[in-house]
């Protein structure tokens, strides 16, 4: 999904992707399926900082228009978060990435990949990460 022009792998901020997947469970929710994420950057950021997101389960990627972010009981379509510059996702805080798709190839144990690209608001960091920081984590998850 992400095609950074620079070598973003050199960014020290990428190391914090280790905390991005907060729980190793893929949960059934009324809208479809959900995973719990933790804000990956080293400071809080507004949702407008999210420049890309993707979720795949056992190799099947959920269509971008079917992804939602549920934060403090508010639901934001990922396609439109680029305009949400008033809402902060705080450090240490969890949110749900929700797939509006009932028929994912879910098994007892699943390979779940989450990608989240974050463009820092501080101009200085953008010099090293012009396309944002492409967090990309894969975990084995049981169904809950």
């Amino acid at each position, binding site marked *: 999904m992400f095609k950074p022009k620079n070598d973003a792998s050199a960014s*020290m*901020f990428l*190391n*914090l992707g*280790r*905390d991005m997947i*907060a729980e190793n469970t893929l949960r059934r929710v009324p809208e479809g399926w959900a995973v719990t994420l*933790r804000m990956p950057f*080293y*400071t*809080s*950021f*507004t949702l*407008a*900082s999210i*420049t890309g997101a993707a979720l795949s389960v056992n190799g099947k990627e959920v269509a971008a228009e079917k992804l939602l972010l549920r934060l403090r009981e508010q639901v934001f379509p990922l396609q439109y978060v*680029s*305009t949400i*510059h008033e809402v*902060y996702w*705080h*450090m*240490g*805080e*969890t949110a749900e990435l929700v797939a509006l798709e009932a028929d994912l190839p879910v098994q007892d144990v699943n390979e779940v990949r989450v990608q989240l690209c974050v*463009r*820092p*608001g*501080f*101009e*200085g960091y*953008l010099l090293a990460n012009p396309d944002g920081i492409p967090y990309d984590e894969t975990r084995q998850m049981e169904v809950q």
Partner: protein
Amino acid sequence: MKLGISIYTYGTDIHAGRITVEDAIRHAASLGAQGVELIGEQHFMTYPDAHAEAARLRSLVESLGMEVACYSTYINGLIRQDRRATFEELVQKAESDILMAKTLGAKIWRPAFFAAPMQSLIDLVNAVLSMLEEHGIIWGAELHAPFPPMYYKEALDAVNSPYFRLIPDFSCWAKGGLDGKYIDAGLDTLEALAPYCVHCHGKSHGFDENGEDPNTDYKNILATLKKMGFEGYVVCEYEGWLLRAGKPSFEIAETHFNLLKRYGS
């Protein structure tokens, strides 16, 4: 000088949700810190207008015999995707942060601002200077590697106010440091900043088996600050958690604060 701990030091566990900001504040007090530094965009779950939360955290800090030594924030130009922040929006953010510093009882406020060109910083400081004076809060520009120690001289001269001063970060005097990108400046360059220093960040990315920072000469940096007659805070600011998960932050904070006490008491 006074010795404290930036709650930034506990980042690895706060970021992962293993401890709370309150846990970190209590731990800093247990180590004997005189003050703590709090960061708006890290330690407040209701940021940016977090006055009730700030009042509660201030109360906790003071109940433990400490004070909020410094309040740090970021004035970001790229909050929106469709355009850069306007000058008026930057001023509005600065004013909001100053009021938060006041609620916290912090006399020093560190807004990280990308000062390119330097005139943009000068204009922003001048726009809120009367507010800083009114509330008795000093804007501390953080002097951080890879920028050289005299980086803010033009702005300091242009603003020429005791309410616009410097927060030297030890990274400016680190040897090699992160990815070898840091400038190894001589400590005479720190001494030259004596009239401007109001607060210091004791930066570290790791410690050896003796609790020393192999990249940063704490002994001589702290001796230089004493020689300068520096009376503000030096706070631990451990940043190794950005590079690796590492040891639990309580252990790191204790090692780091012991290093400060060894040479700064």
